[in-house]
């Protein structure tokens, strides 16, 4: 970072500190401590991309920081009694509600909140210093959002500890994608005609698998993610629209990049119908890419594409196509 940018950072951080200190003069947070936390966030931000930082980047980054939340977290990490009192007063009952929402029993919820408090306070001592979980909060999201995440992870860890024989992946797989591995049911093969028919069908199936894989692979990451949220994680349109509700959401900006709507009303609310349109565009893109792959790469004729689609659609009623997909993936993984 050049000297001008460094000076600019210091100036902005100084203003932020003054405001926070005015709001909470008893928290005992020093300018040095506050500045150190924000500089760590800037360093991390800087290393997350190749482009050189500009004054606008810094303004955007620091402008998004939840400064009062960060100030409180730093004070709590330092063990300031007044800050802990405020934290407890403001957030404990919220944490209890979140834990109750996630945990199976009231006792589990209470235990989780206690365990999270233990992490927040910090019981580990490194180089003579108590390590508080609060030190990992950067202020980029709200403190409550961060607390929700910490509680969720604590519950997962707790579940994992109670199921030593089950890996974290297996556990979450059971939660999210439990039916993902069905076996491939081989259709019965009859006489010579049926065998030829079967060979043809297998050929169509194979190219279809390859084409759908390639079509999905050709999407941009934000398009893949929204499809995965919708199809694999079963997020509802309303839930996805919530994710992109913030005007500053990059995911929203990526989808709106080429949209005329954005220019007319960039700050407009994202409705479920908008997310629906984004998904429709993704399907149209996948279809286009799927067709192109079959026509140009696999030598399938235009009329045969319909056969591929029909075969795949027929197979979708059972598990055979699905099994072939899994088998194809396994084979390609092995070949790597």
């Amino acid at each position, binding site marked *: 970072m050049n000297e001008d940018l460094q000076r600019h950072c210091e100036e902005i951080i100084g203003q932020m500190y003054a405001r926070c200190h005015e*709001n909470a003069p*008893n928290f005992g947070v020093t300018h040095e401590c506050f500045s150190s936390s924000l500089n760590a966030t800037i360093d991390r*931000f800087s290393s*997350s*991309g190749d482009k050189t930082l500009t004054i606008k980047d810094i303004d*955007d980054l620091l402008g*998004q920081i939840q400064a*009062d939340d960060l100030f409180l977290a730093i004070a709590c990490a330092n063990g300031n009694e007044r800050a*802990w*009192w*405020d934290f407890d007063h*403001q957030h404990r009952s*919220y944490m209890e509600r979140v834990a109750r*929402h996630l945990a199976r029993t009231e006792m589990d919820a209470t235990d989780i909140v206690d365990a999270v*408090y233990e992490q927040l306070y910090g019981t580990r*001592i490194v180089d003579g210093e*108590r390590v508080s979980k609060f030190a*990992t*909060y950067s202020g*980029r*999201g*709200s403190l*409550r*959002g961060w607390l*929700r*995440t910490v509680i969720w*992870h604590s519950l*997962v860890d707790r579940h994992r500890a109670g199921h030593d024989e089950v890996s974290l*992946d297996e556990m*979450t*797989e059971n*939660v*999210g*994608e439990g039916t*993902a591995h069905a076996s491939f049911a081989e259709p019965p093969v009859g006489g010579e005609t049926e065998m030829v028919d079967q060979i043809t069908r297998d050929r169509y199936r194979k190219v279809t698998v390859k084409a*759908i894989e390639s079509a*999905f692979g050709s999407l941009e*990451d934000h398009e893949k*993610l929204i499809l995965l*949220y919708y*199809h*694999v994680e079963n*997020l*509802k*349109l309303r*839930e996805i629209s919530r994710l992109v509700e913030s005007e*500053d*959401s*990059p*995911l929203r900006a990526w989808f709106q990049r080429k949209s005329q709507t954005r220019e007319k009303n960039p700050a407009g609310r994202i409705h479920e119908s908008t997310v*629906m349109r984004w*998904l*429709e565009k993704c*399907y*149209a893109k996948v279809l286009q890419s799927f067709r192109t792959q079959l026509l140009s790469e696999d030598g399938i004729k235009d009329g045969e594409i319909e056969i591929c*689609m029909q075969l795949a*659609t027929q197979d979708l009623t059972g598990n055979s196509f*699905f099994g072939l997909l899994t088998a194809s*993936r396994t084979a390609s*993984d092995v070949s790597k």
Partner: protein
Amino acid sequence: MEKNIQLNPQELQIQGLLDRYLASRNTMTEAGTAHIDEDSLSAFVEGTLNAREAENVTSHLVDCGFCRHASAELIRLELAFAEEEVPSAAPSSSEPTKMSEVLGRLFSKIFGTADGAVFAHEEKTEGEEKAEDEDEKGQ
């Protein structure tokens, strides 16, 4: 999956195909990089992560089933608690007279120790340090 998306027959077919394909992907395979930390994950879920960082996070979420599942659960949770009233960030004016009691009770519950042990990390007073020094010399 919601059924209210209006698609033409071919798009409908591709949607079905995609649905099964995505379910069959070995999505629990971890990405080559470490899992997303809680700080970045919560900022992503709230849509407050800047584009520069969100790009890396999005890319990781496509490959890492664990982090994606975590983010999906957090999105649901965020929505469930969206209508919660956010308290004022400014601290209240009343004095925290019973803070030691609150923390003491909490930590004695967690660690099974007496209240005093909660503040074991606090710096010693000058008198205490002198007394300890004298004890050590005496030994």
